[in-house]
């Protein structure tokens, strides 16, 4: 389909790649080939070794066996600079930006324009601003990156990767933190890159994405290479079979229990802007959830849906105000620990900064939010803790060499599972799930849906935020849509469609 001579030539080949971490084999004989002008999907379950393979290509991991050819020349990367010099640019799964620095500084991090410090700074700001505009992002580049929501940060990361003109671009789950609008922007960029003859390696767990942009698909399972096929020849069922090694039920399994009583009702809830701006991020929102119900809260970036849940949970302390009733009793959001004690739990949308203590091990993260349960009279019960963690490991199919592993050496999806396990342990009555399936593979997603069913059948009320529209539509019993801090629409799940929701979300 690509006639141009410059297209469809081999850019990269990795063969016989093996890698182990302190004795645990993570990749064994993995391979990957990339041609110019193609989007090559790298698929596999959580912990299959996708990110590890990419980190080898990026020069992050330098101890491995196997050979890498770039433009048919054998290469050996000793650092990330070597990889960049060979024309490889990587958007890593975990953001690698500095939140305390400005957006412009982040984009040029590591290759600052340094002729005359003050002159170059103005130039940098202008250039950064232009580059972001080109990918459809119009923001103040002199503000601290940490002030912006995760999705904007992700777009900045993408912009940074594109700033160096590279021929091989790797994106490791770039859309896991993006909303639909930004995903469209990203796909436009990808189409342009393809036109220019770049090769793109793209990792994702979202099936719709795979079939929208894939030219070819390669699959890894447990660190082993399973195969490569053109997207047109590998249908979804077969792809899942390759990834999981067995067939998998792909239906959304929502079973709504009978209508319960009102578990949480919120009236005129307002959250002031945490950075002190005069406009509230959530203004006068009212809604309620019943026991056994899943309420979906849709909204684009900046809609305030995440802030609404955080406000009720007590994250912002007194910056959030409104009338809240829990099972008919009045409740004031004071602190997260107060909320947890009252049966409200919040799975936050960013496991790295607000979800997990990355330096602690799996067991300790699992029990952190419910530690009182595991320490009667202040004394910890390590045996009980391990037992619980072991239980969740099985239930959530957590892939980890041992439970005493630090969570930062887990794969992204497995980290998410630890965060979920932590909140299950708090035994909430009202469960706020902010992007519960972020970075989670197909099999585990299904497990999480089943868990949501189980919880609602036990009378737990769930409020769900997710940027994956099919998930929202299929799992919610009722959907409210937010735009700029206000509710703009409400649908019963049967009446809701993707178009209606998007329209309401745009205001």
């Amino acid at each position, binding site marked *: 389909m690509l006639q141009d001579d410059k297209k469809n030539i081999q850019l990269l080949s990795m063969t016989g790649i093996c890698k182990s971490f302190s004795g*645990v084999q993570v990749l064994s004989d993995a391979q990957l080939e990339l041609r110019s002008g193609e989007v090559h999907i790298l698929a596999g379950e959580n912990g299959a070794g996708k990110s590890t393979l990419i980190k080898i290509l990026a020069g992050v991991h330098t101890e491995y066996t196997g050979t890498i050819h770039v433009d048919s020349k054998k290469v050996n990367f000793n650092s990330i600079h070597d990889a960049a010099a060979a024309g490889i640019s990587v958007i890593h799964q975990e953001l690698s930006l500095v939140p305390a620095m400005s957006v412009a500084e982040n984009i040029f991090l590591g290759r600052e324009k340094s002729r005359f410090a003050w002159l170059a700074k103005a130039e940098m700001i202008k250039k950064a601003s232009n580059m972001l505009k080109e990918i459809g992002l119009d923001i103040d580049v002199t503000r601290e990156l940490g002030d912006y929501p995760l999705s904007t940060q992700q777009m900045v990361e993408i912009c940074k990767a594109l700033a160096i003109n590279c021929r091989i671009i790797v994106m490791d789950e770039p859309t896991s933190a993006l909303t639909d609008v930004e995903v469209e922007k990203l796909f436009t960029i990808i189409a342009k890159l393809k036109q220019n003859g770049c090769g793109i390696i793209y990792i994702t767990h979202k099936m719709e994405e795979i079939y929208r942009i894939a030219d070819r698909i390669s699959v890894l399972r447990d660190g082993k290479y399973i195969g490569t096929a053109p997207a047109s020849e590998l249908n979804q069922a077969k792809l899942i079979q390759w990834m999981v090694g067995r067939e998998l039920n792909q239906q959304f399994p929502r079973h709504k229990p009978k209508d319960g009583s009102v578990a949480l009702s919120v009236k005129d809830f307002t959250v002031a802007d945490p950075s002190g701006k005069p406009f509230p991020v959530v203004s006068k929102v009212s809604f309620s959830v019943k026991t056994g119900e899943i309420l979906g809260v849709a909204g684009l970036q900046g809609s305030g849906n995440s802030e609404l849940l955080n406000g009720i949970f007590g994250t912002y302390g007194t910056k959030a105000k409104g009338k809240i009733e829990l099972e008919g009793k009045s409740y004031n959001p004071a602190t997260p*620990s107060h909320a947890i*004690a009252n049966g409200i739990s919040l799975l936050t949308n960013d496991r790295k900064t607000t979800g997990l203590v990355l*330096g602690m091990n799996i067991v300790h993260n699992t029990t952190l939010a419910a*530690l009182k349960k595991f320490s009667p009279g202040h004394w*910890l019960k390590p045996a009980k803790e391990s037992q619980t963690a072991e239980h969740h490991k099985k239930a959530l199919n957590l892939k980890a060499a*041992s439970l005493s592993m630090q969570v930062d050496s887990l794969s992204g999806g497995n980290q998410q599972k630890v965060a979920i396990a932590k909140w299950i342990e708090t035994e909430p009555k009202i469960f706020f799930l902010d992007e519960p399936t972020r970075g989670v593979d197909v099999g585990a997603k299904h497990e999480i849906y089943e868990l949501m069913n189980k919880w609602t059948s036990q009378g737990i009320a769930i409020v769900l935020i997710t940027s994956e529209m099919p998930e929202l539509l299929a799992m919610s019993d009722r959907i409210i849509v937010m735009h700029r801090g206000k509710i703009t629409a409400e649908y019963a799940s049967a009446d809701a469609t993707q178009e209606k929701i998007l329209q309401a979300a745009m205001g």
Partner: protein
Amino acid sequence: MKNGLKHSWIASPVTRALGALIIIFVIGLIFNADSAFFKWGTHRDMLRAVSVYGMLACGMTMVIIAGGIDLSVGSILALTAVCFSLFTIHRGINVFIAIVLCLCIGTLCGVCSGAFIARFRIQPFIATLAMMVFARGVAKWVSGGQKISTAVQQADGSYKYVDVPEIFNIINSKILANNITVVTIIFLFCLLISWLLLVKLRYGRYIYAIGGNEEASRLSGVPVSRAKVLAYGLSGLFCAVAGICQAAQELQGDPEAGVAYELSAIAMVVIGGTSLQGGRGSIWLTLIGVLTIGYLEKILSINAVGEDKRLMLTGAIIIAAVLLQRTKK
């Protein structure tokens, strides 16, 4: 999967820290003037010399794991040493009450730093720097700038020498057939308390969690402020214990005592391998760090190395030990 555990002991921080200690120990065996290293007395004296620092290092370990730093330990030590001498030697207050009062003073200082850090979000470096200056000031004010010793000034300006209270001798004595000093026992007791808190108790877990990721901990319902106040308060308590021991060893309360002790305590923690970033480390690593510095000093003094070279060597050792910790990460 089993292979993973085969290699892990090599990489574990305890092994690395022990490595540094063993190297120092071997150096001691080589430069073994008068075969001093073969006499238990040498080791006993090393332990005695290092005990007061060790107590400060215990508190410092908890504070550092919680993601903070405590610069005020030396000053609180001086303040409590002065108070203890004043209470017992000059005022003749009951020893038991004097000890309790001093422990309260130390704890209060720590709790104040902790409260400013937790409630008003002042950076630990700054809050404890302020406490360092403040406590030193109080120590000088209470003592009138004089060493509080057995020479008690009378109303007419003459000095009268009094006997030092019995408690001073008790703390200074050696027990178990002269094989170990009481201060060392007290240090081991501080270690034990720190270990219990950090490993066995719920709040210890909170301290690790806060040091690792404060925001995630807060959102998990961890009582962040209380855990921080606890860490700084305990650090203050151990300072007071150290201050009492210091007064007993010097037979006086010196308002100038403990200058730069905070740096020694931090060095001991860091040499052990506890990272200043917080969230990681252990009290046993600190014990190793304390012994490493203790032996280093002892070896240098056995071999009569001058203070100038001693300081240079200690600086070099700190860097070397920390680099050793970092290799192969």
